[in-house]
């Protein structure tokens, strides 16, 4: 696809090309995207266990779970149609594609073009649409309720995300994610740092909502009445459930890498050091999520829209600061 056309962006730092080469960079990008996401769940779990004074599951537990799930057979209810089977596939596929649009650390994304931030936002919306449709396809009242909640909350999270992108686009003067997140923000101008802080806070809230983390949703809950995301996947089993969990981990990873570039736009100038910095940064974000989950209780369901509106206002305020 557009892999080759963006070679120019890759060469930005010059030495990158000579050390690893464009294809090498792309391979590393895809390798990290495929392999690392479940590790984040392990790190979050370990952090929470540490706070709770427990040993917790092993760091690689999410990988074991996925391997186990993919070895199992599938059970499909006879009332479901192809939509039910398409849900997990589309969910994982959109997360993968979104991961290809995001620059990991200092390294450019394999696919990049002007306006890809809109594709990025709506890839997740597409995945969500299919997950919700698959949930409704089962005809279960609980799953329909979960789908309704999920789409309600995410339609409030979406404007927040777009305001964040607006701020980043305004700061960097670029309309592609690679350009927006290249870390070359105009730090000399007065409003840059405050605007970035606001965007960082807003993005973190969006990340927690979109990935159903604790103040908004509990990924480990076992009570259908309070579930949001988890209730939608109750009927999936075996490889389908594995795909959903893998896709969810990947989504967390991708959103985390966006956040990382906003809060820590650093570079060492060396290709391998930058990859190391990126991996370390993502793990730090996972630890922060774990800390937040350990220290906070879930919000009351009515409070969630208020917090999401506040997240929108935070990023909108960032836009106002820049337009001044």
């Amino acid at each position, binding site marked *: 696809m557009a892999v080759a056309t963006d070679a120019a962006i890759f060469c930005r730092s010059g030495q990158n090309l000579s050390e690893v080469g464009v294809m090498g960079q792309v391979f590393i990008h895809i390798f990290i995207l495929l392999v690392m996401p479940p590790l984040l769940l392990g790190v979050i779990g370990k952090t929470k266990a540490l706070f709770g004074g427990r040993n917790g599951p092993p760091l690689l537990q999410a990988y074991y779970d996925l391997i186990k799930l993919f070895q199992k057979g599938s059970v499909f209810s006879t009332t479901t149609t192809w939509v039910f089977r398409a849900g997990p596939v589309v969910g994982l596929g959109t997360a993968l594609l979104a991961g290809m649009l995001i620059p990991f650390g200092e390294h450019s994304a394999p696919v990049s073009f002007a306006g890809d931030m809109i594709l990025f936002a709506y890839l997740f919306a597409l995945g969500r649409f299919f997950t919700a449709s698959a949930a409704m396809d089962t005809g279960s009242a609980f799953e329909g309720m979960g789908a309704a909640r999920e789409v309600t909350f995410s339609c409030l999270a979406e404007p927040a995300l777009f305001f964040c992108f607006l701020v980043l686009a305004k700061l960097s003067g670029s309309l592609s994610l690679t350009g927006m997140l290249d870390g070359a923000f105009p730090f000399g101008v007065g409003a840059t740092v405050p605007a970035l802080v606001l965007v960082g806070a807003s993005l973190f809230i969006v990340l927690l909502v979109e990935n159903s983390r604790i103040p908004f949703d509990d990924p480990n809950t076992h009570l259908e009445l309070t579930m949001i995301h988890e209730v939608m996947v109750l009927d999936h089993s075996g490889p389908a459930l594995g795909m959903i969990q893998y896709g969810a981990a990947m989504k967390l990873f991708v959103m985390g890498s966006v956040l990382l570039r906003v809060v820590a736009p650093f570079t060492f100038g060396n290709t391998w050091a930058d990859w190391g910095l990126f991996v370390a940064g993502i793990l730090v974000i996972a630890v922060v999520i774990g800390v937040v989950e350990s220290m906070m209780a879930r919000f009351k369901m009515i409070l969630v829209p208020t917090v999401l509106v506040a997240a929108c206002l935070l990023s909108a*305020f960032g836009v106002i600061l820049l337009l*001044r």
Partner: protein
Amino acid sequence: MNRFVDPVLIFVLLLNFVVLGASRIRTMIQAVAVQGALLGILIMLAHGSFMFIGVMMALVAILLKGILIPHMLFRAIRDVAIRREVDPLVGFIASLFLGAGGTGLAVLFSRTLPIIHADTGTLIVPAAVSTVITGFLILTTRRKAITQVVGYLILENGIFVFGLLLMDAIPLLVELGVLLDLFVAIFVMGIIIHKINKEFSSVNTHMLSELKE
């Protein structure tokens, strides 16, 4: 003007939103306390040099706005035993939006105001105007007497921010007098809240419109 002034003012603005969105009175008071303390720090920053007068002004402001008045308000809510603003005239999300709209307009139009041009680069004027708007919003849309006092405090904080522009023109004595007035006003309001609570066994101000023997 110091380059740390704008970040502090942004915190002041964000605290406005905390107050607008909070239903727990405790949270509101804490936010106003932090806002008051930030204003004290702001005086020191705005002065640039750490002169005796500036530092003393800042300390007095921090002591009054950050510690003493919030402490009195905490006592007041403990006495009247209320925790939340339950049913405001304008809902929390709606007031958040109104506050955001007010802030946006304040930022966009602050340049066109005919005031001294020395500090147009900073956020002082928009922050002052939007804090005043927030104060008015809280004052007019909340039902409890105690949340209205919080609104009054925010209103005063906005005027205080505006006063930063005139730091060199206004003598210390006037500033101290204003702070003292504020303190006395809150003191009186505390007593009134106590009386309202005793008389009506509620601090909802709409009860005051009913006649009573």
